[in-house]
């Protein structure tokens, strides 16, 4: 059963090919570019910086603000530009997923802005966005406890599989995106969409954790590659 080959030729626990690059933008304080399968995502980080939106600032710590945005040409049908319900939700959960890793106590009254731009989308953009955003945060030199990484698992054709593609996401029975801090294994994001039994859910989380660990290595590699002297 678990030896089944998926629609795009992957095994049940196989990730799509991933490419991560850190520090791709000149003007931003930190940036990252990520490709996973057909997804192309660009993230820019600014800050910690002064903000004039005083009501958002905290006197004892820094705050983060996140904007997830899909380009109009990122999907098959043109996506109507501007924020919508879906992107507002993803903006919020991304900020919440990244926040526990950040150590902004030394930057009170300041704000870190994260801009996630989806240039092309092919399923799993929220996890890819989190993965890329944390690389960009590291690149910006922001103190962090760990590099957060996101990955999804789901159920397709009654089989729990890793890293759903767009087709699998649409035709599948369930989608469980998670984000973790790989050193401690703490979960910072957990969503579940669709029907799963208790065992299947547990299996999906285990599988997604495993996927996260693999992606985490690629994140570290990308950062090391950018800054090692050789």
């Amino acid at each position, binding site marked *: 059963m678990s030896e089944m080959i998926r629609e795009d030729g992957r095994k049940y626990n196989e990730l799509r090919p991933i490419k991560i690059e850190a520090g791709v933008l000149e003007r931003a*304080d*930190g940036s990252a570019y990520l490709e996973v399968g057909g997804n192309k995502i660009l993230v820019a980080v600014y*800050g*910690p*910086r*002064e903000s004039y939106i005083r009501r958002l600032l905290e*006197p004892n710590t820094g705050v983060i603000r996140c904007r997830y945005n899909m380009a109009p040409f990122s999907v098959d049908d043109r996506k109507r530009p501007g924020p919508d319900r879906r992107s507002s939700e993803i903006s919020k959960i991304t900020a919440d997923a990244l926040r526990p*890793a950040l*150590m902004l106590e*030394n*930057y*009170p*009254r*300041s704000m870190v802005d994260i801009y996630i731009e989806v240039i092309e989308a092919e399923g799993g953009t929220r996890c890819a966005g989190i993965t890329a955003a944390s690389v960009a945060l*590291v*690149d*910006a*030199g922001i*103190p*962090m*406890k*760990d*590099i957060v990484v996101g990955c999804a698992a789901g159920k397709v054709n009654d089989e729990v599989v890793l890293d759903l593609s767009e087709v699998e996401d649409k035709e599948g029975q369930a989608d469980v995106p998670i984000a973790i*801090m*790989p*050193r*401690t294994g703490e979960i910072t994001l957990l969503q579940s969409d669709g029907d799963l039994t208790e065992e299947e859910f547990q299996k999906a989380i285990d599988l997604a954790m495993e996927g996260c660990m693999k992606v985490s290595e690629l994140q*570290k590699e990308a*950062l*090391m590659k950018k*800054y*090692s*002297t050789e």
Partner: protein
Amino acid sequence: MIYVEDKNLVIPGQILADDDYYPGRGTFKEDGKICSSLIGLVSLRNKKIRVIPLKSKYVPKKGDVVIGKINDVRFSMWDVDINSPYSGILPAFEVFGRDKKELNKVYDVGDVLFLRVIDVDEVKKAKLGLKGRGLGKFKGGIIVDISPTKVPRLIGKKGSMINMIKNKTNCKIVVGQNGLVWVKGDEDMEQLTREIIHTIEVEAHTSGLTNKIKNKLCLAIDGELPVEETEEEFVLEKPKLQNFKEELEQEEREKAEAEAQIQAENEEIQEAEVEEESADADGEAEAEEEKEAEDKPNFYEVIEELKKKNQTKKDKNLSYSDNSKNNSFILNNR
């Protein structure tokens, strides 16, 4: 137990050592392990682990000298942008004393000033002042910005890097600790200096940088590489011929000096500044000032103190490698 070596590149969340080491800046302790919180280079001394960040934002600190730009003129103070998440304020009192004058006639929006941070409150608001030698408004010139963590590298050991650039380009250069650099000279030279400073920023974590910059400067200004090899160059080039061990020793030595440099950095900037500004004011004072600066044994004292503090094998090695290098230099010159 330690898992990394000195000068290694580390990333956030990477485990650096167990409980028997002390966590310094850029690290944190969790479950008896010391982890890095930044992307940067490890600095290991006396069982204390620090991570020197590759990039950072300037957080105002009392006593720093910074370059700031007037952002706004208010009733009794100026708002100053100091290239930081926190804006600085320059109270009119600091400039006029008890006199009452119109603020925008003295400094207007867009003016660039060299200031001292006289106080930072608990929410990091920086109060700035102009009391001190060399502090005041810049006339003309360009501003180059670099990461504040790269400032020590731009200044170099005992100011070697910055003085070399000054001499070669004939520019006046002032470095603020917030990562802003003011450059004034010929237009071509200003541009060249800007390029050079950016090169230093990008390659700050590579070794033998002073030499590389020197060659680049000579090539751009004189149109040729320096013909005569100076002693300094020779020492830096030598490890290529030697075995790996000596290379390591060389690195150790560079590091110890760099550490001393960071300590001396404050005074360094000030003194460099005093030279510069006095040149602006009157030429006569300049020579005296320079002499004074040379006579001051600050940097040597700091280095000596540091060496005494860490009477370890490392330091013995250092002095040893020093000697061997000088000897072979003499030998080779024959």
